[in-house]
């Protein structure tokens, strides 16, 4: 009992940390953007005029990128996009896969759906994931750059939608398979047999009888899928395919710098990934935050599942 209480306490603390960050990020546009220094164009350091990028020692707390935007402000602004895009994607994936797998209880649906699902599952595991994403999304990006002279917001939105659709479809088959296996296992149990004999319909079985088991599985999976999606975002950013679109800036003759428009964290990492040697803080600081987010989510998962296991659910 005490362990359950402890888990609950930990869960509350972790969730409140997460939500306070989220609140901070949402407050960025209306309130905080006036308070922070967003861009440092030039500064006087040691009596000499200097131009960006500034290191964390010169501009507190995290330095600036090559255009002079402070990384601290960008991180705060981008957090809500990172988290919410990931969350929506994962929730949709889980809901759709739960729906599809509950449809597979019926034999004709199962006969059509399951071979397809297992084929795609095999396909997606065989091709390395980052390359798969590059392969599927890259051509769209090229086509879009080719078609649009300067990237419009609407085009960016369509591109974001395509990216999310691809990410959604890539993750779906394995989830459906997992839920299908779980349901098949639960259907073989004695209590499922009993309630079926007493006249429970198939959907009723899933809604009422399997709810405790499915709840644990789902809450466990939700965060796991979220973490997986977050790492997929980084793969995308590595190849300069940012979520929420990008903007190519000309810094100097022949030097281009692709910037994310949403300041979403994986995009922040991706946009300066080639500058690890010259300005390491522009890559490593968002990376540390990203890893911190993932570790936080992991801890939440552990507290959530640990707390549920001890509950008397049935």
């Amino acid at each position, binding site marked *: 009992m005490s362990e359950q209480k402890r888990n609950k306490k930990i869960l509350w603390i972790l969730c409140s940390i997460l939500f306070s960050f989220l609140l901070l990020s949402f407050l960025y546009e209306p309130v905080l953007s006036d308070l922070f220094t967003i861009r440092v164009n030039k500064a006087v350091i040691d009596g000499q005029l200097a131009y960006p990028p500034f290191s964390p020692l010169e501009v507190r707390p995290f330095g600036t990128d090559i255009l002079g935007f402070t990384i601290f402000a960008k991180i705060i602004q981008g957090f809500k996009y990172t988290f919410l895009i990931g969350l929506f994607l994962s929730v949709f994936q889980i809901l759709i896969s739960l729906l599809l797998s509950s449809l597979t209880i019926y034999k004709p649906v199962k006969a059509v759906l399951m071979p397809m699902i297992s084929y795609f599952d095999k396909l997606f595991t065989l091709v*390395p994931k*980052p*390359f798969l994403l590059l392969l599927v999304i890259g051509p769209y990006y090229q086509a879009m750059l080719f078609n649009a002279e300067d990237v419009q917001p609407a085009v960016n939105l369509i591109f974001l939608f395509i990216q999310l659709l691809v990410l959604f479809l890539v993750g779906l088959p394995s989830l459906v398979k997992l839920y299908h296996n779980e349901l098949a296992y639960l259907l073989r149990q004695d209590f499922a047999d009993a309630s079926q004999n007493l006249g429970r319909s198939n959907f009723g079985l899933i809604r009422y009888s399997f709810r405790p088991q499915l709840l644990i599985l789902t809450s466990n999976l939700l965060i796991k899928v979220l973490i997986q999606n977050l*790492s997929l975002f980084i793969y995308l950013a590595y190849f300069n395919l940012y979520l929420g679109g990008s903007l190519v800036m000309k810094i100097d003759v022949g030097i281009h710098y692709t910037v994310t428009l949403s300041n979403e964290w994986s995009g922040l990492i991706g946009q300066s*990934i080639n500058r690890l040697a010259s300005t390491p803080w522009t890559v490593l600081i968002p990376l540390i935050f990203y890893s911190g987010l*993932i570790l936080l989510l992991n801890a939440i998962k552990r507290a959530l599942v640990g707390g549920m296991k001890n509950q008397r659910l049935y």
Partner: protein
Amino acid sequence: MLLVCLSYSLPLSTSGNDLLWSTMIETMKQLFTYTNFFNLSTAYQQVNGSYTFKIIAMSLGITLFFLILYAYFFPKFKNKTIKKMIDYLEDTESLPVVGVVLFIHWFSVMIYKATSIYLFKTVGTPREPAVVVPLVIVSIYPLVFLINYMTPYIKDVYQSNYFIFAKSLGYSSSKLFFSYVIPNLFSFLERILAIIYLEMITVMLFIEIQFNTGGLLTGLRNTQRIPAESYPQLMVINFLYLLLLPYFIMSMLIKLIHVIITSKISQ
């Protein structure tokens, strides 16, 4: 497989299915020509493809060696230590691969800057690629995954009745380890060996780009820059088949071993 590669042509032909079909047929025709094989072998030489296979084979060996070491020393750990370790390993596993690769890269450079000790080669060229750091990074993830996955099985094997009886009869633990524990673990191991190989490929992609070593996956990435007229999808399919060749060989070998074992048992 082929379908994914041909999704390539799909977005370019938003108008209809005609282009998709024509590219598909064209690609199939081109795939089995002599020129294709010739081009592939040239590309393989150019991108230094054997490097990828060498690194992956080496790190597979390292990973298996460490797993056996872990399994050997498993009974000496306390239960609590293992549970804590698994938690930490889970955390490590969920961190993004790119982050770890970048961080280790930066860290080794920092060490060199601070102490001017030239620990490892961090940036290579396709002719003289870096070996040590990539090897370490490629081995970390599969090792963590393996330990996470195998720990319950190792525990089961050690707590099985057979093991306890044999130990109480006075067999030495090292003899039991080689004659009972390893053969029993092998059957679980073969299931995930393929997954580990695929995971290694994923890590390898970032290492090859980051450390500028050249290799199969760099070649695969470079296919994105091939203009559309010279059939990039052909090269993509070629490279993918090359990468998955060891995977298929491995699964065939495991099947062969199974056939041999079952035939022995039936005799």
